[in-house]
């Protein structure tokens, strides 16, 4: 089952496309990281996945073919929006009761036990909680709905390092205990590198690459060789990014099976290098003569 599946998905605000031609299929059971710089279209993609925004083009389905925003989708997806919105004038206990009243499924015992564990007093106003506690409150309420898919928009941005660790621990526990799938967006990859096992890279409203982290690392390689041969080499390989340092050229290529030209060294890439290559690639300073390959089909990547 794919927890999120989009086809040619696009959203336009006025004359600007926040997201274009996004075709994507995220299988269940992953912690998927949606990364990209600010304004890349991450929130737009998430909003359309939870039914908050209506696509301008294409379609988005969730939880194995359910229409985004449908009753089944609302029941099965818990969404924590950016800055973890809670009603500041309501107490944590009221927020809990509110969420229970608004949902067909709610595990009150879990929510209470979790808030107790976190040391969040039920009587305290949500607005008076620290940023980390507000985020934990929003996450607890989301998980108490026992969703099949948890969508978190920039949940770590406002948190200090300790709170980030606590937050991610809660998410990972829920994944292990209930098998909930997670889609998590961030403009910083570093904090997700160790936990994410699926990666979606967005930039300037376009999907750059998507796939399981292990597959991506297996299929991408860094080739180092003489700069003079870079152009001819690039014609035969799928180059994501090319860098030249005097006599040497570094090519980050996609395709583990493609033959390496003689005289070129092969290195494995880190996730960080891979993401940076895809983010820099589109419209970046392109070396003349190098064809820069951009992939929009996730199937091509994991091949």
């Amino acid at each position, binding site marked *: 089952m794919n927890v999120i599946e989009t086809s040619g998905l696009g959203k336009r605000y006025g004359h600007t496309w926040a997201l274009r031609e996004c075709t994507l299929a995220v299988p269940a059971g992953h912690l998927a990281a949606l990364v990209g710089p600010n304004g890349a279209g991450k929130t737009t993609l998430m*909003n359309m996945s*939870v*039914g*908050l*925004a*209506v696509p301008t083009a294409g379609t988005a389905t969730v939880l194995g073919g359910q229409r985004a925003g449908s*009753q089944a989708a*609302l*029941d099965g*997806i*818990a*969404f924590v*929006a*950016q*800055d973890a*919105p*809670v*009603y*500041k004038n*309501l107490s944590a206990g*009221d927020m809990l*009761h*509110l*969420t229970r*009243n*608004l*949902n*067909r*499924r*709610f*595990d*009150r*015992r*879990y929510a209470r036990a979790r808030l107790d564990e976190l040391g969040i007093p039920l009587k305290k106003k949500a607005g008076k909680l620290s940023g980390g506690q507000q985020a934990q409150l*929003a996450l607890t309420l989301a998980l108490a*709905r*026992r969703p099949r898919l948890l969508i978190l928009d920039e949940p770590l941005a406002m948190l200090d390092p300790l709170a980030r660790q606590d937050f991610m621990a809660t998410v990972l526990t829920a994944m292990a*205990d*209930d*098998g909930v799938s997670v889609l998590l967006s961030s403009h910083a990859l570093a904090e997700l590198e160790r936990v994410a096992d699926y990666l979606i890279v967005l930039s300037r409203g376009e999907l750059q690459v998507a796939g399981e982290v292990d597959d991506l690392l297996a299929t991408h390689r860094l080739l180092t060789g003489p700069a003079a041969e870079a152009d001819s080499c690039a014609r035969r390989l799928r180059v994501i990014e090319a860098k030249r340092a005097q006599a040497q050229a570094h090519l980050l290529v996609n395709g583990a099976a493609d033959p390496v030209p003689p005289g070129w060294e092969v290195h494995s890439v880190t996730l960080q290098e891979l993401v940076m290559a895809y983010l820099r690639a589109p419209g970046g300073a392109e070396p003349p003569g190098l064809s820069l390959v951009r992939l929009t089909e996730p199937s091509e990547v994991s091949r």
Partner: protein
Amino acid sequence: MTVLTMPAQPSQDTALRPVPWRRMVWVTWRQHRPTLISVPVVLGAVAVFLLIAGLKIHHDYAVLTTACHSPSSNACGNLNSAFNSTDWTIGNTLNILMQFVPVLIGAFAGAPVLARELETGTYRYAWTQGFGRTRWTVAKLVLIGVTVTAAAGAFSQVFTWFYRPFLAQEDLTVLNATVFDTRGISFAAWTLAAFAIGVFFGMLFRRIVPAMAVTLGVYLGLALATWGLRAHYPVALVSNNPGIGGLDSFNVHDPWILSTWFTGAGGKPANQSVVNQVFALFPHNGAPRVKETLAQAFAQHGITEWWRYIPVSRFWPMQFIEAGWLLVLSVLLMAATVWLVRRRAA
């Protein structure tokens, strides 16, 4: 050996269960407690003031009418001027303030309902819960709308009692523009309309302050336009009975004269110069120059005066017409609001 970890069986509490509409009662109450309490409490407090002040005014008026059985007496004159200076000042001020009560409710109770959610971003929480945003919106609008409308309706009944002595004393009828909409069912209907206007612009602008300002403007424009519109409610009568428009002294049962015209022989429009000649016999200041009444003087010239008018007895049909179209307008605005919620998210 392999250990299989199975997800815990969902307990009864976590199974899918229906979320009935009544759950929104608690949700609405908890989230809009300040509005749901303050509107009835403020109106209730003013109503208590109206009852206390009204008892004195009703007493003053009773004393006044007793003394004025002989209208030329000193006592009558003194009481009259006292009533007109003190009691009427309170009555007139409160009547002017009454005109603004619905729009204040619309701006302060209606505009923020959705605009606050959009302004603070909490709609992203509310609209992604299992209840669904359409039902969520409908439930809130109905519950808050009914509460403020009922409170305003009850309040206007107290005001109607409070204001009664002023009608005869200050030459007013229930059809007067500013009297008509403070009584009957129209005050409640105006409150509901103001609430619906506030909610609609709150959703349209997604900002509280602009929504409040526009609510104020739109409501006042609508209220002023309605003063002119009432003359076109299909309740007017036409008559040539001099008892309709030819009275000199004022009476609370006087009809609302919409227009007057003259016909001559054969029902054709009368010669205006002849009409003017007759009017000249009845100067505004001073005694008429002939023995006859105005109607008799016109009759002598073969002229009939006609009136198009609304009798006071048409008060309730007019109330139902006004409340009716305001209700339709409110429902349309709320439907448009729900459409915006469904459509214009994020």
